[in-house]
């Protein structure tokens, strides 16, 4: 599950959001929306435990799978070998099935750096599926994907949640998953400072 209570995060000196509370239990999925720079990635990294919150608490229970624009596959290695490193580490059971599902079977001999944007994204999804994590934190999983692959991502998320998983998805594109909740991060943006006017005495 994903739990945040009164979470505030900042980037540098700037407060991105504050007072954010979220509770996602097993089987629940949430669509995280907000404009560029609103703090979606920061929230995801904080929940993953890769960054420190400024105030409040935020974290995940269970194994965490993170998919962002850095897919952690060696660029020089053939896709199959790069994925096998993570599959072996995560003791992934169904290598062939995962590759087939993401239409990567024909690409296993291609070095990762020669893959297109969408193929790279699918390779990242393959790594995520092999991990079998309880919590999926997806940062822009749909960017660069064609329509068929976008539908596939929604399908995978739906299956993940049907199997008792939890997912938080930051995306600018609509996601088609039953029972989808929405969290607009801008609802938690700090009040803008009044410019030029003296602050009212409390």
């Amino acid at each position, binding site marked *: 599950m994903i739990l945040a209570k009164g979470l505030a995060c900042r980037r540098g000196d700037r407060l991105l959001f504050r007072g954010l509370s979220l509770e996602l239990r097993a089987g629940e999925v949430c669509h995280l929306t907000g404009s560029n720079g609103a703090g979606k990635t920061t929230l995801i*990294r904080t929940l*993953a*435990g*890769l*960054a420190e919150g400024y105030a409040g608490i935020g974290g995940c229970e269970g*194994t*965490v*799978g*993170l998919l*962002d624009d*850095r*897919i*952690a*596959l*060696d*660029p*020089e290695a053939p896709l199959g070998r790069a994925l096998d*490193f*993570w599959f*072996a*580490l*995560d003791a992934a059971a169904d290598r062939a099935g995962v590759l087939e599902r993401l239409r990567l079977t024909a690409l296993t001999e291609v070095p990762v750096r020669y893959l297109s944007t969408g193929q790279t994204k699918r390779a990242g999804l393959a*790594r995520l599926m092999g991990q079998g*994590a309880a919590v999926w934190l997806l940062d822009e999983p749909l960017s660069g994907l064609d329509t068929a692959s976008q539908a596939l991502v929604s399908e995978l998320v739906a299956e993940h949640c049907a199997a008792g998983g939890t997912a938080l998805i930051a995306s600018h594109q609509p996601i088609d998953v039953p029972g989808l909740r929405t969290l607009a991060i801008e609802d938690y943006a700090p009040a803008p400072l009044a410019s030029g006017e003296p602050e009212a005495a409390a």
Partner: protein
Amino acid sequence: MIARLLKRDLALFFPFAGGGAALPVVFFVAVAMLYPFAVGPDAPLLARTGGGVIWIAALLAAILPLDRLVARDIALGHFDQLRLRGLAEEAVMAVRLLAHWFSFGPPLIFAAFPAAALLGLNGPTLHLVLLGLAAGTPGLAAIGLMIAALTASLRAGAALSGLLLIPLALPILIFGAGALARQDSTSLGFVAAISLGLVAIAPFAAGAAIRAVR
């Protein structure tokens, strides 16, 4: 898990296992080859100063792999993924230190044989050079790893890391090459002690550094 990690890191750095390049070793032998051309065919002079040249060449060769030691995997998100799988940064860096040393320490020690032949070093001197390199290269690897992790977020990190390694490697050089001047292996004990200390600190320092970059 640690064994798999070590295997991947070795493939990344080891010159003969597909990944990386044999560049540090080639560089090392090239320096030893160039030196006689520069100072002339004065055999006694070469034999007297050759050991020191090997040490300087080893130090410079240790700088070469630094740019791909840590920064690349930070950019790939590799360390983030390992963190999510519950591996501490310190353990990841300890594995990386081991792989880094394997990729340049033993090859350098083997390359010292042709280098010694090119410089006309005698048997006892070669013996001291080999012992010194065996004791000193783990320390050089540890300094290299710490510097690579600390400079990973800087744009000119690669150039800077070379500059930073040289003063920090000075104690190893002084005691390692000092043994050659006096033809006495006692100061190599200091080299080994410095190396041990550095190897003990490096995973923690480098681990803290990559955590701070996040």
